[in-house]
């Protein structure tokens, strides 16, 4: 990596952590002017910044308002860089359907996971909150999703996650999708019990999980 690249990636990353939209746009414009690879600028600059923001959240330095502002700076930089992504350099994006299960309207955590997935290069369809099982399945089929990501914060609505897995099995399409679950009352044990493919405790781990689940498919292709 050249010195100038390194400096620009650092500026992008800092702009995200500092919640500075203008600086994110300025640094992204400079990336474009200098003909630096937009994909690497997103990955090593903006994404890296969002990951640092996530760590600050875990350390209780940042809270929800800060994270949302960081994500705004990240999207501002992305908007500049996106048109310059060289399509040949980037492999087909993996698709995720995400939503909060039926009966639950807590969506702050789901929104964070969605933001982090997008930063990490996933193509995310967000169904929103209070979503019946059938809609997850329909949408996943429709867009040819790789991953179905389910969120809930309430014990009373956890079973909706099991219902999604069951419906996939009943339709004989269980192996076409990876199902990942998360939210306050969810645990690895619960994920295993309903037959989900993975669980993550926070947004940063959710990204690692999603990446690892789509990685084998890539190796086989």
């Amino acid at each position, binding site marked *: 990596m050249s010195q100038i690249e390194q400096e620009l990636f650092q500026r992008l990353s800092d702009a995200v952590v500092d*919640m500075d939209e203008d600086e994110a746009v300025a640094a992204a414009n400079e990336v474009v002017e200098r003909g630096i690879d937009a994909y690497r600028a997103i990955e090593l600059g903006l994404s890296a910044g969002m990951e640092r923001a996530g760590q600050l959240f875990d350390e*209780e330095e*940042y*809270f*929800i*308002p*800060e994270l*949302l*502002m960081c994500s*705004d700076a990240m999207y501002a930089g992305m908007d500049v860089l996106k048109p310059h992504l060289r399509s040949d350099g980037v492999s087909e994006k993996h698709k995720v359907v995400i939503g909060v299960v039926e*009966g639950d*309207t807590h*969506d*702050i955590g789901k*929104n964070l996971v969605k933001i982090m997935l997008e930063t990490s290069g996933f193509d995310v369809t967000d169904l929103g909150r*209070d979503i019946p099982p059938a809609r997850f399945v329909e949408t996943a089929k429709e867009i040819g999703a790789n991953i179905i990501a389910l969120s809930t914060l*309430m*014990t*009373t609505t956890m079973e909706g996650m099991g219902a999604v897995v069951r419906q996939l099995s009943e339709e004989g399409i269980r192996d076409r999708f990876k199902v990942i679950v998360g939210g306050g*009352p969810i645990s690895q044990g619960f994920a295993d019990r309903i037959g989900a493919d993975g669980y993550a405790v926070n947004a940063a781990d959710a990204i690692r999980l999603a990446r690892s689940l789509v990685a084998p498919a890539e190796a086989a292709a």
Partner: protein
Amino acid sequence: MRRDQMTPLERLAAYGAGAPIDRLPCVPIVGNTAARVIGVKVGDFRGNGALIAEAQVAAYRLFGYDIIRIFTDLYTHAEAMGAKVSYPEDETAFLAAPAIADLSQIDRLRPADPYRDGNLPQHLEAMRRAVDQVGDEVAVTGAVTCPFTNASFLVGADKLARLMMRSPETVHHLCEISLQTNIAYAGAIIDAGCTPSLTDAMSSMSVISPRQFREFSFPYLKRLIDYIHGRDRKVTLHICGKTSGIWDAMVEAGADCLSIDNDADLGEAREAVGDRVRLMGNVHPSEVMLQGTPETVRRATLACLAQAKDTPRGFIVASGCSLPTETPFANIHAMLDTVRDAGWPVRC
């Protein structure tokens, strides 16, 4: 099984005065579970104060806990200010759309009139009826959704969070009109012979920082509590989720009793603020009360007693938050029976 010797009002008065009591006060926070007690659907509570009162009084009589709380969901104030609330047939209501879709409409927002707007009149009706029926033996409270949380229902939680950084004065404006609604409603609750019971989910450290709490939530909470104190009522304040970093501020705002969520540590709370406020908490509403057995409930209740029974300013055994609607009756009975068995002075 030991039987109660005192009415809840006698017990709380004696406890407050340092006089002997038969057992510690105990409050499994029963909300829509009351519908199950009289066999109606949660959705039937909508706009029906008489039915809410009937259910809450029946639940109190069945379990014998120490405070009746008239509560169906968090959105009653926001609804009265224009938010859209969705009422499933047999589940707790939820926010379908905030009061305004766009900040350009902010001037439309007005404080609610508790005697006219939304379902507030019906909730007041429920309070009056409950007081009529059992007010001579048990305290009846009415739930108030505090300014910062209500503000999030006026514009949406994500939008409010961004405004905190981009336009603090807008957040203050939203909290101010929410406070006006709160004060009017709290006044009406007191006129109905009840006590306001404050709840503030979004002020949690699970969402905002202690510094942000100080800036955006504290000033309004303090003014609300000052008003209620001015009308000679004590104040219980519940904030969901993590709260250890704001206990001091909650005390400073004037709360007389902090209701501690299961995500916070009761023993730590006793150490930190137990010499200044009464505490209540914090049996896990879902993992223990909903999903556990009477034996799990007994153990969890004893654990709370061990942590906080000797809180200098007093302790009320309670659930960490409102109970889920389908909480088994046997578990609610188990919580009270454990407290009855522990007696006074508490043996555990």
